[in-house]
C-alpha cells in the first residue's frame, strides 16, 4: 500500500464510519468529551496499523473492534484508579452513581437507561443493535457462548424498559 493509497483509505474510513463510531462511543461512555477522545484514539490506531487491514470490506468491523478495545482499556484503567482510592466504590457504569440529579437531567432517557446497565450488558446490546453484529459474531468477539449473548440481550432490554418506565427525577427551583 502506497502512502497515497493509505491516506485515501483512511479518509474513506473517517467519512463513512466516523459518525457512527462516535455515536457508539457516546452510548458506551455517556460523555461527549470521552467519546471524542475514544474515537480519536481509534482513528490514530487505525492510521498507524492501516496496513494490517487486508480486506477493505472489513474496515467497519475492524474500526469498531479497535473502538471496543480502547474503551475496554479505558474502563479497566478507570476502575484501577478508583480502586486505588480508599473509601470509594468502583463504578459499574460511566455515569457515576453519586452524580448529581442535574447532571443526569442533561442526558437523554436512553443514556440514563444505558448507564444503569452493567458494562457487559451495555457492550453486548450496542454490538448487536448499533454495530449490527449477529449473536454468533458478538459471541465470537466477546469470547462467550452465543447463549450468553442472547441472555445478555434479554436482560439488557428488560432493564432498559424498567429504567425508562421509571419517573425521572426533576429538578425544580424553590417556589
Amino acid at each position, binding site marked *: 500500500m502506497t502512502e497515497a493509497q493509505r491516506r485515501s483509505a483512511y479518509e474513506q474510513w*473517517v467519512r463513512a464510519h466516523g*459518525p457512527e463510531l*462516535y455515536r457508539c462511543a457516546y452510548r458506551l461512555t455517556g460523555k461527549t468529551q470521552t467519546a*471524542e477522545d475514544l474515537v480519536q484514539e481509534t482513528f490514530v490506531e487505525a492510521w498507524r496499523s492501516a496496513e494490517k487491514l487486508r480486506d477493505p470490506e472489513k474496515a467497519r468491523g475492524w474500526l469498531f473492534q479497535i473502538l471496543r478495545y480502547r474503551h475496554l482499556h479505558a474502563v479497566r484503567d478507570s476502575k484501577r484508579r478508583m480502586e486505588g482510592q480508599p473509601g470509594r466504590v468502583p463504578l459499574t457504569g460511566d455515569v457515576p452513581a453519586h452524580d448529581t440529579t442535574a447532571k443526569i437531567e442533561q442526558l437523554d432517557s436512553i443514556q440514563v437507561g444505558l448507564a444503569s446497565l452493567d458494562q457487559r450488558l451495555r457492550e453486548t446490546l450496542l454490538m448487536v*443493535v448499533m454495530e449490527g453484529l449477529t*449473536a454468533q459474531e458478538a459471541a465470537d468477539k466477546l469470547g462467550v457462548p452465543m*447463549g*450468553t449473548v*442472547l*441472555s445478555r440481550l434479554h436482560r439488557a432490554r428488560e432493564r432498559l424498559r424498567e429504567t425508562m418506565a421509571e419517573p425521572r427525577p426533576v429538578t425544580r427551583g424553590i417556589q
Partner: protein
Amino acid sequence: MQEESDNPTFRERMQQAALLPEIDPVRLAFLKQLQSGNEAVGDAQWQVLLAETESLKLQLQSVSIPNDLITRLLAIPDSQAIQAPAPSPLPFYKRPLGELLTLGRLSIAAALILVIAAGWWAIQLLGARQQAGAIEHVALLAEDIHKSLAAAPPGGGGADRIDTSDPKAAEAWLKTRVSFPAIMLSAPNVKLTGAAVVKLANAPAALTRWQRDGHSYSLFEFLPQSLNLPPDFAQQTRQDPSGAPYKMILWTDSNKGCAWVLVMDQSAPSSFTY
C-alpha cells in the same frame, strides 16, 4: 451470577430475536417457528417488540456529532507525521558545526574543561607539596649529619673521609668515590677542613666541610633524582623546625646535573662562589 438462561421462555426468545439483525440465523429460526405456530397473539407481540426495537435503535442513533469531528479525524495523519521519529542523524563529522554546537553541548564541554583544569591544578598542587616535602626531608637529613659531625671528635664520625685543607686534594679524593664532579667553595676567609662520602637516605653524597670566620659549614652534593627531587628547582632556604640554630640552603644546577645542601649556623654568612 448465572448469565445464561438454560431454558428461555418463548417471550424471552422473542425479545432476543427482535433485537437481532434481520439476517441473524437465530432470528430467522425464531421467525420460522413463530410462523408455523399459527399463534395470533405471538404475532401481535412480535410486532410490538419490533416497533420497540426500532424505537430503541432510533434513540441510540440520536446523538449529535460534533461539528469539527470529521475535520479533526482527517487531520490525524498529519499530526502523526509530525510526531514521527526524526530520521537517523548524519554522522557527527558530516553535520554542520552550527548543529553540533548546541547550548547543551557547549555547557557539557565547558564543564569537562573545568573538571580537567581542576584535576590538572590538583595534580600540580599535589606534586608541589610532594616536592616541598622531599626538599624539607633532604634538608633535615643534611642538618642531622652536620650536627653529628660537629659533635664528633676530630677524625671521628665513622665516615669515609679525608682531612685536608687543599681543595684540589679533596676534589681528587672525591672524584674516585662519587659519580659526579665535586665543587669547591670560594669566598674570603673560607677554608676547607675535610671531605667525606656520606649517605643521605641511602643516596651517596659528597660532603665537604668548611670554616669561615668561626662558623662551620657542611656542603652536601648529590644527584637530585637519587632522592626523588626534581632536576631543577629554585634556591630555597629552610630553618630547623625544632628551633635548632641552623639553616639550610638548597639549590640545583642543571648544567652539572647536581643538587646541593649547604648547612650552616643561622648567623653565618652565606655568600659563596664555586
